[in-house]
């Protein structure tokens, strides 16, 4: 009897325990959920901010930067090219190009799984970013897809038809940008370093995807279209370095969203990319200015801001992989290198890359992608791991010379795709719409001939 009592008492106690345990587990689950929600909110806040910052790089950053560099009869048409892309690429992204870049597909291009943004909602995609809604990831990536073609407009400034420009850019977004983004950042992409690509190319924020593709395509455009009437005999100085100055400063600030946002979270990796970005830009400003001071006797304002942009370009693939000191080394190298590209190489080959899209983005992007393979540090970002989960060396300086080869493969593919894709698209648009405005319109300026407006409307003083 006593025994029976004892057993039933025990049963009662264990029943109470089980209830308590269940309550505790529920409590823990709730706390875990709250922690995850808090992290998600924090990450999402930074990613939405970054998305806005990257859009600001195009408008008004690039809009002002390029707008100031052209002659005043072309200021609006130049600004309008970048601004139009903010709208056109956005619609294209929603219809199909997001899917081609980031939906599951083959090694070269994404599939049609996400056309019309199907399945792109509040649920995160853990392969891309586990703590933010996939929709945030989509809109962040969209801002990259906007600025990349906008950068190309610098090469054919002051002479391309607006209609031809829009047709060219739609095709370019589909044929060059989407596959390149998929190869480097997409699931199963051939060059994807974090999702097991065949040739893991380190490209944190788009050295190859954004700057090499746009810069090299820019060179192809400049060569295909030929120089502006009067170039290089007639001088065509920027009509307002003041506008360009403001634009460049906005680019510098926006670039924090571009690079630190590419951490896709708000943690220490974002900080590391932020710091590298800033130090790279500063070093390149000094590098370009010093080279110019030494060669030409004066450090120009246009030189200083061009140097900053060159540094930001070169640090783009490396940010998030390199230490601040390495960022300074990359920045210095980029500042001097791009100065030589823009001043010496361009005049040597006599192509009219009007606003130096190739000299800064193509050259700086290629240099930066290469140097990323040299300076990448596993202490900053342990991206390569062996089967046991141990961290492997990242860059050449750590003993992984092989990474240079991977970087070269990424660079070569970006160059190849940009050249072939751009030539084919230019040819196509040339025979259908025609690329250049008639000579008369070029003389008159594209603001009037293409848009029927003037940037600086003249009226007699009252």
């Amino acid at each position, binding site marked *: 009897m006593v025994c029976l009592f004892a057993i039933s008492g025990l049963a009662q106690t264990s029943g109470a325990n089980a209830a308590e345990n269940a309550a505790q587990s529920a409590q823990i689950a709730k706390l875990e959920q709250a922690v995850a929600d808090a992290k998600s909110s924090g990450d999402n806040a930074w990613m939405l901010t970054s998305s806005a910052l990257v859009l600001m790089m195009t408008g008004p950053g690039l809009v002002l930067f390029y707008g100031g560099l052209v002659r005043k009869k072309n200021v609006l048409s130049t600004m309008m090219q970048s601004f139009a892309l903010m709208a056109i690429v956005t619609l294209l992204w929603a219809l199909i190009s997001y899917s081609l870049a980031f939906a599951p597909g083959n090694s070269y291009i994404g599939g049609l799984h996400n056309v019309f943004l199907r399945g792109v909602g509040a649920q995160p995609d853990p392969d891309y970013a586990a703590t933010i809604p996939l929709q945030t990831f989509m809109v962040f990536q969209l801002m990259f897809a906007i600025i990349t073609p906008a950068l190309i407009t610098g090469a054919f400034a002051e002479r391309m038809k607006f209609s031809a420009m829009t047709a060219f850019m739609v095709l370019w977004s589909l044929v060059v940008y989407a596959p390149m983004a998929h190869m480097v950042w997409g699931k199963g992409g051939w060059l994807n370093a974090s999702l097991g690509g065949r040739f893991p190319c380190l490209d944190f924020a788009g050295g190859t995807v954004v700057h090499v593709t746009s810069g090299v395509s820019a060179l192809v455009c400049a060569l295909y279209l030929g120089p502006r009437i*009067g170039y290089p*005999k*007639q001088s065509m100085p920027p009509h307002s370095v003041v506008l360009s100055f403001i634009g460049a400063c906005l680019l510098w600030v926006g670039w924090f969203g571009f690079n630190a946002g590419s951490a896709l979270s708000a943690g220490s990796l974002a900080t590391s990319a932020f710091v590298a970005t800033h130090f790279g830009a500063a070093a390149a400003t000094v590098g370009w200015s010093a080279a110019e001071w030494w060669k030409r006797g004066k450090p120009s304002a246009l030189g200083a801001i061009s140097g900053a942009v060159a540094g930001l370009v070169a640090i783009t693939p490396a940010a998030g992989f390199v230490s601040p000191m390495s960022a300074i080394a990359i920045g210095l190298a980029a500042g001097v290198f791009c100065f030589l590209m823009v001043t010496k190489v361009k005049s040597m080959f006599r192509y009219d890359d009007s606003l130096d899209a190739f000299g800064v983005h193509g050259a700086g992007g290629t240099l930066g992608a290469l140097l990323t393979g040299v300076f990448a540090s596993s202490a900053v970002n342990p991206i390569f791991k062996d089967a046991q989960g141990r961290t492997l060396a990242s860059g050449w300086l750590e003993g992984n010379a092989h990474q240079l080869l991977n970087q070269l493969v990424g660079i070569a593919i970006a160059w190849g795709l940009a050249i072939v894709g751009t030539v084919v698209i230019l040819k196509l648009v040339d025979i259908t719409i025609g690329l250049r405005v008639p000579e008369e319109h070029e*003389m*008159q300026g594209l603001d*009037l001939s293409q848009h*029927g*407006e*003037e940037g600086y*409307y*003249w009226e007699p003083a009252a």
Partner: protein
Amino acid sequence: MTKIEAIIQVSKLEAVKDALHEVGVEGMTVFEARGHGRQKGHTEFYRGREYTVDLIPKVKLEIVLADEMVEKVVQAITTAARTGKIGDGKIFLSRIDEAIRIRNDERGESVL
């Protein structure tokens, strides 16, 4: 001494400057100008509202020369500035009584 006032297309300024240097003109004064002759203007649209711009941007050059230079210079300008279309501009010649260099009160053709 003769003053040449040439009103030309903005886009022809570089070519005209080059042509003038070739025939030995060493100095000139250039103005940004607005105007029209028989050339019609163009229309611009701002938020659907149409504006007719009939005062078109032009460039005006003023050069004062010794008389024996004038024909050669007029020839150089017309050749360089001509497109054959309405709006190429005009050249006006007028007599100049005296030229004075401000720096040292020098007078006459040697000032030019």
